[in-house]
Structure formats: C-alpha cells, structure tokens
C-alpha cells in the first residue's frame, strides 16, 4: 500500500497530468526559448540540450537518477499536526494543502529514500518545490529529523537536495522553529561522523538556506540555481537599486566562497558517489553489507576492504 501510494500513484499522476494536454509534448526552455521534445528532455534529466538550463525535476526522477540501478526504498515519514494555527488567508491552509497533495500526489514537500550509491549505503532527501514552494514547515522538519535518524541507523551519509521559497508562513512561528529543529537533526548526524552533503537546487531561499541547507560538510549547487537568504525582490525594494547580473546564482555563490562546487545534473551521481566514497563511509558500513560486497570483489579492493573492516571491528 505504501509502495502504491508513495511510488506508483505519483508517477501515474505525473504521467496523466503531463500528457492530457497536447502542448506538453513540447516544453519551451525558460532560458533560451528553444522548444524541447518532452521525451528528449526527460532523457536528459530535464536539462535543456541547447543551453544547459536546469529545469525542475521531481523527487522520484532524482532518486532514479542517483541510486544504483534506479533502485531505492522510500521511507514512511512520521505524521505531524495538520494546520496547528488554524490558518486562513484568502484561502484555508487545509485547502491549500489539499490542492498541493492532489497536484503532487505527496503528503508534503519532502521525500526521503535510501538505497545504494556505487555500492555504498546512502540516504537521500529531496525537497519538492512543486509542493507549496517546497516550504519548510512541520512536515519537512520532521522529514529531515527522520532522514537523519535513518542515516545514523544505517551509518550512511545523508544527501539533501534543497528547494524552497522559505518557511511555510501558514504554520507561523512553528515553521521558524524548524530552523533550530533541523539543525539539531544535522548535529546528531555530524556527531556520528556521517557526511551531510547538501545539493542546493533552484530556488533555495529564506529560512531553508539559513539553516540546514548551509550546514553541509560539502556544499554543492546545480548550475544557475537561485540561492539566497533575502530574495532579489525584497532586496530591490529595500535598497531601490537594480541587482547585478547573475546575483545570488550558484556561480555567484561559488565565486564568493559559499559553495564547494557547481555540478551539472548529468555529473551529479558520479560526483556524489565519489564524495561519499572518499569520505570513507565504507569503513562504517554494517558488517552484513561488508560480506555481500566481499563476495563479488576481486584482489586489491577486497584486501583494502578487509583490512579496513578488520581495523574498524577491532576498535570496537
């Protein structure tokens, strides 16, 4: 049932919503304006073949592109209080939630999965901008807490893809409290010496950038992603100046020392696999997994692995 609701249903919805209008066969690149054939675009991980513009991509597509053989398990996320403030603006918050759930087929704006990346266990959390702007509220906070717990349990790195307009205003102060809350979750991970890798995607702004999304051991961004605390419009209104070209884009942040690297989507899996490998998570793999990988490996690597496994077990 879980597999049905979490995996099959959203995919099914995506297919149906994408295909029910004929003009969805072609997508116009928001950057260069080229018309892109839907299937080509999908095969290219939603990156424009002409200008390399990175269009948004769903959490499921990310999981499939990142995990070994596109195999992974979604975890069921803990329930959180719904509409704790009984918030209503021009519309009830519960209505907005319902709409977003219908649109995405998801419960809230973050999905968490675990699987293997180049043989190493990994937990990946993906924030979905299509769900109420990816906004950080109780549910996303809880998802990060759960992802951190899972990573600790599996002695695996946590890779988090951020995308959000900021905090979920409809949850008021409780959304603000997710900033310290998620920080605690990340601290627990770090105290277990497990890598926390953040991939900032377009857009990552506000309270999300100002908490977990800037606390990675390694900070990666997708090309062209808007990454900021205060959004460009807020700044323009405050200082009444037009902003420089490329301001707050991934490349700008890289230049200003806020990121380790900007990575093209086609290179993302390889880069992440290499990083978690280099950071040495193999040493921390649970014994059962060790045995499995020993079976199929040959000569040199297996010796190294056995040595390291012996070293880690003798410590205990």
């Amino acid at each position, binding site marked *: 049932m879980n597999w049905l609701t979490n995996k099959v249903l959203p995919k099914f919805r995506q297919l149906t919503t994408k295909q029910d209008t004929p003009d969805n066969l072609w997508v116009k690149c928001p950057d260069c304006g080229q018309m892109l054939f839907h299937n080509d675009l999908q095969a290219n991980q939603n990156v424009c073949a002409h200008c390399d513009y990175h269009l948004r991509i769903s959490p499921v597509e990310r999981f499939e592109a990142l995990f070994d053989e596109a195999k992974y398990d979604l975890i069921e996320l*803990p*329930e*959180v*209080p719904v509409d*704790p*403030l009984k*918030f*209503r*603006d*021009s519309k009830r918050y519960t209505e907005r939630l319902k709409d977003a759930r219908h649109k995405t087929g998801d419960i809230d704006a973050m999905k968490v999965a675990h699987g293997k990346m180049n043989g190493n266990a990994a937990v990946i959390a993906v924030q979905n901008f299509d769900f109420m702007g990816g906004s950080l509220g*109780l549910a996303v*906070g*809880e998802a990060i*807490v759960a992802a951190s717990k899972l990573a600790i349990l599996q002695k695996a790195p946590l890779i988090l893809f951020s995308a959000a307009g900021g*905090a979920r*205003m*409809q*949850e*008021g*102060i*409780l*959304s*603000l*409290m997710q*900033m*310290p*809350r998620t*920080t*605690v*979750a*990340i*601290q627990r991970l770090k105290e277990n010496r497990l890598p926390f890798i953040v991939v900032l995607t377009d857009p990552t702004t*506000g*309270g999300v*950038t*100002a*908490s*977990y*999304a*800037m*606390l990675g051991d390694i900070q990666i961004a997708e090309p062209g992603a808007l*990454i*900021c*605390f*205060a959004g460009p419009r*807020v*700044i323009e209104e*405050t*200082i009444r*100046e037009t*902003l*420089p070209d490329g*301001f*707050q884009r991934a490349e700008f942040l890289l230049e*200003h*020392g*806020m990121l380790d690297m900007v990575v093209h989507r086609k290179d993302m899996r390889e880069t992440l696999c290499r990083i978690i490998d280099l950071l040495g998570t193999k040493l921390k793999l649970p014994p059962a997994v060790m045995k499995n990988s020993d079976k199929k490996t040959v000569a040199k690597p297996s010796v190294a692995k056995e040595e390291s496994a012996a070293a880690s077990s003798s410590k205990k």
Partner: protein
Amino acid sequence: MNNFLDFEKPIADLEGKIRELEGLEDGSDIEIKEDIAKLRQKALHQLEQTYAKLTPWQKTQVARHVDRPKLSDITAQLIEEFTPLAGDRAFADDKAIVGGMGRFRGRSVVVIGTEKGKDTESRLRHNFGMARPEGYRKAQRLMRMADHFSLPILTFIDTSGAYPGIGAEERGQAEAIARSIEVSLDVRVPMIASIVGEGGSGGAVALASANRVLMFANAIYSVISPEGCAAILWKTRDKAQEAATAMKVTAQDLLKLKVIDRIVDEPVGGAQRDVPAAINALGDAIEEELTSLVGKEPGELREERRRKFLAIGRLEEG
C-alpha cells in the same frame, strides 16, 4: 511620553487635557486640582483597559514603539562592568549586534543582542537593528568564547530581521545565520534569550535557540513581518492586521504553542512607559531562570536545549 500610537488617541487626549489644566492651575483652585486628579484616574483606567485587550496588530505596534527598552538601556541597568567586544575577526564589526562580557547580578556573563538605536544618528550607526553576516559571526565568536570560559550567555532580541542587502548576501547572510543557530545549539553553558521588542524571523532565531526563551508581554516573535506575510498571502500589505492575528505572533500565543518558556509582564501601558521598571522585571525573570540552570551539567544543558527544540510542534508521543 510624547510618542502615542494611533489606538492610544483617547489616552493622548486625556493627558493633553491634564496638561492644559496643570497650566491653568496656580495652586489655589481646589476644583481644578480635583478635576486633574479625576482625569488622571480616568487616563490610567483607560490605559489599563486598552492594554488589557490589545489586538495582535496593536501589540506589533507596541513592540516596535520607538521608546521600547533598547539593548543599551538593558546593559546600562542590568550589566555591571559591561565590556563590549567588537568584530568578527574576518571582515568587520557589525554594530547592529552588540556583544561583550559583564556581570549580571554578581555573575560573570556574556551578553549578545541586537541594537536598534535611540535617535537618528545611533539608528543609522546600528543599521536599525538589522544585522549583517558579520554581526552573526561576532555572535558565534562570543558564544564560543562563553563556552570556552563556562560563562552563561544572555541574548536580547529586538530586530525586524536580518538586513536584506547586496553585501550581506555576498558575504553569506544565510550561512552566518545557520551557523549562529548551530553554535547556539552546541554550547554547553546556560543560554537565556529574551525577546524584548520585535523577534523578526531568521535574524531573531539566530540568537534565540536558547535553554530558556523569555518574552515581554507586548513583544512579538514571528516567521515574517505581518506586512510581509500579508503581501505574499493576501497580495496586499494592507492586510497586515489579519496576518498578525493569523500568524499568532504574541507572547501569549507563543507560550501556548510552547515556543517560549516565560512571559515577562510589562508596566501598565507597556514597557515604553516605564523602561527602568520593565528592565528590572526582565532582570528578575532572567535571574530566576539562570539560577535554575547554573547547577546543571554542561552536557545536560546542551542536550536539554536540543530536545526542547526537537519537541516543538511535534505530535504527542513522549
């Protein structure tokens, strides 16, 4: 008190009349004296009545009142031998955040807070209490120092938020706030945060991830300003009153949501009417909370603080 808020107009009128009569009074006219006494009574009553049922939007106005207690008032009254420390050791000294060491009721402490300033000159100098990354990096440095020397940390928050500017973004405003929260949740000394006026968003929580969060009765603490929320969700800033109510920004609401730990009562008519009395009450509350924290093990203080934030807004499960 010359700075009246719009909803205080009846009180302002009464006080105007009192002043008028006082001008007429030459010490001999008993009737005028009686009238003045009556009007004073009436004005006080009106003030009590008005402040007993302030709306969230009115509280927002009170929280932003120009005569609210400032960090400089607090350090002058509560911190002996206050010794400000400057700079983030990387780029600059941000005067929107003032910090240093001193003695609070006999105990050596580290103080960090936002400063809005009192007049045009000092407001500009302190950037209206809106900090840049250097401010949050100075705060981190001072928190680490407090941890190193086992000194309790007292923070005071009155800010509309972190400064939204080009330079601030270039130098990593988001990272500076994120690290400030991280350090707050990492130190192993008692940490007490007090929301004095406005607790504006990430710029406030950067200094308020503490063991105890106290809040003045008319202060506000929110994820975004009511105007900002209205502009986004209602598409017009004119709906700020509705937004203030919907977002639950008052101390009374936040205590119910267990986001804050204690409300500090203000003098009749708000802290701005009697700043020394308000600060004294705040000092008493901080002293009580601090006394309950200082005996605890360093590791316990940190773990308690973390658990407290993990528990906020979670479904009951123990």
